[in-house]
C-alpha cells in the first residue's frame, strides 16, 4: 500500500518512547478523582451511551440473538424517551448480514471483527478473505487483531505490513486495530504497537478482544491516547480510540471521558473518534440515567438483558 505523502519516513519502531510505568499509573489514577456535577453527569452518560459498540462475540451467537441486540441498539430503553442510540453493533463476520438488515435506516454502524479473531493465528490470505467477506456483507467497520506472536518475536515489519494489507482490503470501511494489550505485557510494548498500527493506517486503535484478562484499564488507555496525541502532532492525522472489555460501570466510563478530554481535547469526544467496546455497560448507564430521572435506585430486572 502506498504511504500517504505527508509521511515521508517511517520511524524506527524500536525507538518508540519508553513509558514511565509509575508515572502513567499515578496520572491515570488522578482522572478518577475529578468531581462531576449532576448536569455534566447526565450529559456524560448520554455521550457514553452514544459511544458504545454493543458487542456480542460468542461461539453460541445465533441470528436471533444478533437481531435482539440490534433492537436493543435502536431502542436502549423506551421507558425513558429521547435517549441517543448506541454507536455500533459489533459481531462476527458471519452475522454481519443479519445485523446490517436489522439496523437498516437507523444510522447505527455495523462493526465486524475479522482476521481470525481473537487469536489472529492464521495465514494472511485467510485474514484478508475474512476481512473482504465482512466488508462485502456490509460491515462499516472492521476490528482486526494484530499478530502478537510475531510482535513478540520482533517482526515489526510483518505486523506493519499485515495491518497495511488489511487496511487496503477494508476499502471504505474504517479499520480498528486490536492490540490485545493483556498479551503484550509492558507499557513500552503497548506504545510501540500503537505506533506501528497508526503508521500502518489504523483508523482506530483498540485495547482488547475482551477474551483475555486484563482487558482495558485506565493506564493502558492513557498510554494509547498519548500515542494518538503524538501521532496527531507529527502527522496531523486523527486516530480514534476504543477501550474494550472490563468497562461495565458508568462511573468508570465517565473517568474514561475525563481522560480523553484532558489528553486529546474536545475533538475526540464524539463517537467518530472514541468508542467503548462493551456489552453490560449500556444497562448500567441506562440505570444511572433512570435513577437521575426518578430519584430512585434501579434494579437490573427492569432493563432488557440484550
Amino acid at each position, binding site marked *: 500500500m502506498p504511504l500517504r505523502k505527508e509521511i515521508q519516513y517511517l520511524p524506527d519502531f524500536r525507538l518508540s518512547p519508553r513509558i514511565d510505568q509509575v508515572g502513567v499509573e499515578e496520572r491515570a489514577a488522578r482522572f478518577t478523582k475529578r468531581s462531576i456535577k449532576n448536569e455534566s453527569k447526565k450529559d456524560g452518560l448520554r455521550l457514553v451511551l452514544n459511544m458504545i459498540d454493543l458487542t456480542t462475540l460468542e461461539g453460541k451467537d445465533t441470528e436471533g440473538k444478533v437481531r435482539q441486540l440490534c433492537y436493543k441498539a435502536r431502542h436502549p430503553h423506551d421507558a425513558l424517551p429521547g435517549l441517543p442510540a448506541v454507536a455500533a453493533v459489533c459481531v462476527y463476520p458471519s452475522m454481519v448480514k443479519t445485523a446490517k438488515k436489522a439496523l437498516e435506516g437507523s444510522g447505527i454502524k455495523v462493526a465486524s471483527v475479522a482476521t481470525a479473531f481473537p487469536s489472529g493465528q492464521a495465514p494472511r490470505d485467510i485474514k484478508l478473505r475474512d476481512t473482504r467477506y465482512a466488508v462485502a456483507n456490509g460491515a462499516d467497520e472492521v476490528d482486526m487483531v494484530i499478530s502478537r506472536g510475531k510482535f513478540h518475536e520482533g517482526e515489526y515489519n510483518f505486523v506493519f505490513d499485515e495491518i497495511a494489507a488489511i487496511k487496503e482490503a477494508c476499502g471504505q470501511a474504517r479499520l480498528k486495530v486490536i492490540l490485545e494489550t493483556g498479551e503484550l505485557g509492558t507499557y513500552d510494548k503497548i506504545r510501540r504497537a500503537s505506533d506501528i498500527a497508526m503508521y500502518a493506517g489504523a483508523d482506530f486503535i483498540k485495547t482488547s478482544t475482551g477474551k483475555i484478562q486484563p482487558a482495558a484499564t485506565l493506564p493502558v488507555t492513557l498510554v494509547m491516547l498519548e500515542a494518538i496525541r503524538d501521532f496527531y502532532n507529527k502527522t496531523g492525522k486523527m486516530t480514534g480510540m476504543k477501550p474494550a472489555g472490563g468497562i461495565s460501570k458508568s462511573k468508570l466510563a465517565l473517568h474514561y471521558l475525563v481522560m480523553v478530554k484532558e489528553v486529546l481535547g474536545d475533538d475526540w469526544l464524539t463517537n467518530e473518534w472514541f468508542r467503548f467496546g462493551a456489552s453490560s455497560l449500556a444497562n448500567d448507564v441506562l440505570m444511572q440515567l433512570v435513577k437521575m430521572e*426518578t*430519584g*430512585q*435506585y*434501579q*434494579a*437490573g430486572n*427492569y432493563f432488557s438483558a440484550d
Partner: protein
Amino acid sequence: MRLEVLKTYKIYIGGQFPRTESGRYYTPENKSGKKLANVCLCSRKDLRDAVVAARSAYGSWSNRAAFNRGQILYRMAEMLEGRKAQFVEELVMQDSAKAAAEKEVNLAIDRLIYYAGWCDKYQQLFSTVNPVGSPHFNFSVPEPMGVAGIIAPQDSSLLGIVSVIAPVITGGNTCVVLGSEEKPLCAITLAEVLHASDLPGGVVNILTGKPEELNPWFAGHMDINAVISCDENPEVQKLIREKSVANLKRVFFYDKRNWTGGEGESPYLILDTQEIKTTWHPVENIAGAGGGY
C-alpha cells in the same frame, strides 16, 4: 496504666467491613450519659452498595440446599455462644441489667437454633397439593423473594436484630439490615460473628445510622423486594407504604411485637418473605380412572 484500645465500629457489606462512604459518624450515649462508641452514620450510598452485595449473594444462597442453610444457621448460633461474654458486656453498657442481658443473649442463640431447624422444614409445612378439575398434578411451594430491606427494632440491641434477620435468611433470601440507632453496638459485633461463621458474604449486610434518613431509600429502592420495619409511628409506616409502591414490594411492620415472648419466633415469619409458586404438571388419565388430584 495503659490506654484502652477502643473498638472501631464499622459496617458490614458483602462480607467486608468498610467505613461509611459518607465519612459521617455519630456517638450514641447510654442513659447515664456515657458515650458508647463512634458509629458509622450510613448514607443512601452505603445502602446502595449493600443492596448490590445482597443481590449478587442471592443466587447462590437461594440455590443452596435447605439442609446446608440450616447447618450454617446452626454454626452462627455456635459462634454467638462463643462470644456471649462480649455481648452481655455490650448490652449492660447499653442500659440492660446483667441478668436481663444474659437472658437476651441466650434467647438470641436459641432463636438461631430454632430457625436452623426450620430451614428444611417450612417448605413441607407451607406446600400444598391442590385439587383441580383437569388431569394435572397441581402443587404450590414457597420460594424466596429476593432481597429484603430490614429496619431492626430500636429497643432491643441483639435479640431484635437476630429475630428479624433469621427468618429472612432461613427462607433463602438475602438482606440489608439497619441496626438500632441508639443501641448499635450488638449489630456490628453480630456482623463479626456472622463473618466468622460459614455465612457467605453479602447474605446479611449490616448498616448503622438513622432510620429517619434511610427509610425512604429502603422503601423506594427498585432492587429491594420486601421491606420489614419495626417502627410504630403511623407517619413512618405511611411513608414506607407509599414509597414501596414503585416496584410493588411487600411491606411488613413487626411493631409492638415482644421479641422475648412466643410471638418472637414463628414459621409464619419465614412465610412473610416467600413467594408461592404453583406448578401444573400434566398427568395421564389412566383408562378414565377417577380419583387422583
